[in-house]
């Protein structure tokens, strides 16, 4: 997705994992995606730069779709679509 599309995207669930290090954001994503309906979008807020690589790989393995990452001051917004 383009940056513009991501900015306009409304996530079905937003999980704030800022202030936690590895494996915090990944475990938070795993835990909260259960509450997202199939076809819905999960947004993970993370201040851990390593997570920007981890969550896309996790999404690929889980056969979800990684939509993209938006950079904000001091943190990132990571979007994952629950495709199944």
């Amino acid at each position, binding site marked *: 997705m383009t940056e513009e599309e991501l900015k306009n995207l409304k996530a079905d669930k937003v999980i704030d994992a800022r*202030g*936690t*290090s*590895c*494996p*915090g954001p*990944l*475990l938070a*994503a*795993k835990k909260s995606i259960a509450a997202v309906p199939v076809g819905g979008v999960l947004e993970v807020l993370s201040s851990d730069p390593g997570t920007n690589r981890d969550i896309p790989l*996790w999404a690929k*393995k*889980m056969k979800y779709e990684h939509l993209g990452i938006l950079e904000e001051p001091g943190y990132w917004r990571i979007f994952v679509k629950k495709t199944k």
Partner: protein
Amino acid sequence: MEEEKEKLSMAILSGDMDKIMGALIMATGAVAFDMEVTMFFTFWGLRAIQKKKHTGESFFGKMLSLLNPGGIDNLDPSKYAFGGLGRWMFKKMMKKHNVTPLHELLQNAIDMGVNIVPCQMSMDVMEIKKEDLIDGIGEPVGVGTFIAEASESQVTLFV
């Protein structure tokens, strides 16, 4: 039909703080990747899953536990232990960098369904009883259980 999950089997021989930390992070990470995880704790590793600090029945057993007390918050790092100073320093640094403390990592692992099993033979040698170990873990087993699990696993790790 639900497809069978991939498996991770870990043999945890070390009771070092840093190695246990790495092992627990990998175990919970694997659960996030939808894997079924078994951690087989043997020898020094048993110290990490003790709820009792001091164990042992014979003189040697008690001495061993005095020199090397149990409980996940009492583990020393593999380098620069300095009689407890290293542990104190690492805990401070981990807190500063927002790293989850070890007892919380272990509880997370249990809550997420990581299968934790102690080794019976090491428990006998080190005089550690089932009651000395934390709750929420499996019954003591032998090497056969580990090999059976490991042979069905896509990933195996020795810590």
